[in-house]
């Protein structure tokens, strides 16, 4: 059996560090020893195939049993590709977020903002043959956290991605354009490369927007690509 094609190693500036002093929770949780770099074997280049029969998709977060959630309805859409622009087909995307008041449907969220019985805040999607995904939701609200005095998270949606290799597994956050909290947020700002940070900010898109119904935002996601160019016959 030939060796599997490894994934490219990231430029550290384009990813956040483990030790991010401005983000308090990293202080006691970041590894202090140097990580051991391992070559990519089948363990890292293979990944689970998520069969929708066992992982049923759920693409509309804006309602529960036909009852509409409160807030501004939105459509979020984009493409999942690798670093060379190849689409990831059939990739499972998991999404979760706070409601329009900035409160999570979560027992540990004690923010004094109303829960919405018609908003659970999770979705599960699969990309199509071109790597495209889309879902319907409610624009989330900003919420306070105790990281520093008067700390508020910019509005965001959490995304979890499963690629073709476990080395592509990734969790990230999508932000919204023009949010005044972005320059103040240590989670958003601890990635050194400005262009990499800005790719976390979705763009308002009139083509995704549906007249009389919902605003559309585009968020494209890139997973690690192969370090060597694969032969074209391997899609």
């Amino acid at each position: 059996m030939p060796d599997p094609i490894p994934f490219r190693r990231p430029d550290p500036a384009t990813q956040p560090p483990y030790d991010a002093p401005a983000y308090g929770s990293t202080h006691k949780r970041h590894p202090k020893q140097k990580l051991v770099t391992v070559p990519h074997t089948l363990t890292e280049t293979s990944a689970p195939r998520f069969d929708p029969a066992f992982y049923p998709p759920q693409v509309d977060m804006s309602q529960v049993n036909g009852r509409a959630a409160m807030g501004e309805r939105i459509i979020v859409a984009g493409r999942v590709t690798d670093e060379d622009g190849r689409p990831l087909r059939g990739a499972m995307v998991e999404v979760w977020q706070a409601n329009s008041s900035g409160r999570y449907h979560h027992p540990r969220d004690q923010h004094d903002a109303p829960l919405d019985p018609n908003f659970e805040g999770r979705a599960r999607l699969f990309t199509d043959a071109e790597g495209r995904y889309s879902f319907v939701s409610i624009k989330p609200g900003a919420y306070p956290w105790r990281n520093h005095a008067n700390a508020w998270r910019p509005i965001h949606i959490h995304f979890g991605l499963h690629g073709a290799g476990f080395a592509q597994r990734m969790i990230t956050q999508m932000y919204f354009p023009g949010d005044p909290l972005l320059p103040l947020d240590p989670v958003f700002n601890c990635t050194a490369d400005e262009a990499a940070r800005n790719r976390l900010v979705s763009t308002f898109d009139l083509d995704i927007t549906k007249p009389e119904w919902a605003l559309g935002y585009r968020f494209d996601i890139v997973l690690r690509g192969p370090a060597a160019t694969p032969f074209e016959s391997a899609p």
Partner: protein
Amino acid sequence: MTPTPATFTPATASQTAGPYWHMIDFPEWADLLRAGGPNAGAQGERITLTGRITDGDGAPCVDALVEIWQAGPDGRYDGGFHGFGRCATDQDGVFRFATLKPGPVPGLGNATQAPHILLTIFARGLMKHVTTRAYFAGEALNAADPVLNLVEEGRRGTLVAQPAGAGAWRLDIRLQGEGETVFLEI
């Protein structure tokens, strides 16, 4: 050969899963052998893999998301076994998976890798997940395992689960400090 792509875009930056990732927690996923699941009826050596995750103060990480990826008993990732599980740590920082013991897996070249389970941890305070492996104490193939041998001998034990009863294996994870787990850059 594919021509060099005209455009290259670095992978999207990781961001912490935060403390409220449980919206995507489905506790049954920690049991890879669950009735009605993708491995229902799969044959092999049933095991549990349990561990406690602690931080630099030795305090339990009670809000971590742990995922595993492993081969089936046949040592294949693309065989009939769906080797993916997810588990939330509990109020003591403990995770627990029920699965089948993986077989040896091909390494690079002609090498063989000892049976192992890839473990990833996402949590508040981890801007990107950490990755490690759980090997099985007493396995003859461990001595020649190409990944274990990249780790300095004194720290190798942090990757080796110990027997903890019939079919039970335990591997505690220390994110930082004394006895810090060896994390792998993959």
